């Protein structure tokens, strides 16, 4: 009984917050694994390895699988919440986190372009844009969680 209360997230988190946790964790895990693979391959090769479509697509597929399974699990556990659209506070949270993550991707992409103009390295440009995209998505979901917890805005 006590354990079921501890793991009963129904009343603690809204569906949107649970969904943000899944997205954040899935993005952190897959981005971390992908970055480590590139790092290891680059160390072995002695230079930055070129982007590999099969590696990128395998991590993208892994991300999709984790997110889909996670969303199905929380939807099954809270079917009523899953069917309810985001309310006004949740929409405001999404708007605010989206604004912040927009800055992250913007700064990342501009930095990547400036870096390309200086070094003329297309591989680095690719990794910087991909990294900025992933980082911006992580910032988006982590900030959503923070706002759901604090709700100060």
């Amino acid at each position, binding site marked *: 009984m006590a354990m079921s209360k501890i793991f009963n997230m129904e009343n603690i988190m809204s569906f949107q917050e649970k969904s943000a946790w899944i997205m954040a964790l899935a993005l952190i895990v897959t981005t971390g694994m992908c970055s480590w693979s590139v790092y290891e391959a680059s160390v072995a090769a002695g230079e930055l390895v070129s982007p590999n479509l099969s590696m990128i697509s395998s991590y993208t597929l892994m991300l999709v699988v984790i997110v889909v399974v996670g969303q199905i699990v929380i939807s099954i556990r809270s079917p009523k919440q899953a069917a309810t659209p985001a309310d*006004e506070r949740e929409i405001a949270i999404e708007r605010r986190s989206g604004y912040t993550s927009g800055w992250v991707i913007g700064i990342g992409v501009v930095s990547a372009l400036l870096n390309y103009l200086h070094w003329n390295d297309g591989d680095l440009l690719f990794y910087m844009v991909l990294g900025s995209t992933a980082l911006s998505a992580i910032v988006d979901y982590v900030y959503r969680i923070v706002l759901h917890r604090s709700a100060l805005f």
Partner: protein
Amino acid sequence: MAKLLPISNCIKTLRERNGEMTQSQLGEAVGVTRQTVAAIEQRRYSPSLETAFRIAREFKVSINDVFEWDESSV
């Protein structure tokens, strides 16, 4: 301690007076989540005017009876 928003309210008291209505029940009645009702009660979120009116209507009182501008927290 977290900063309180300037709009105070007596939603908790009104819920208790209305047959121990839960936050989930009130949220369902006015179209927001239980977490949003909790955030409004704790003055961590100021509801939209529409939601404020819906809450007042749910308790059959005027909006001024539910929400108040708290000059001390400005």
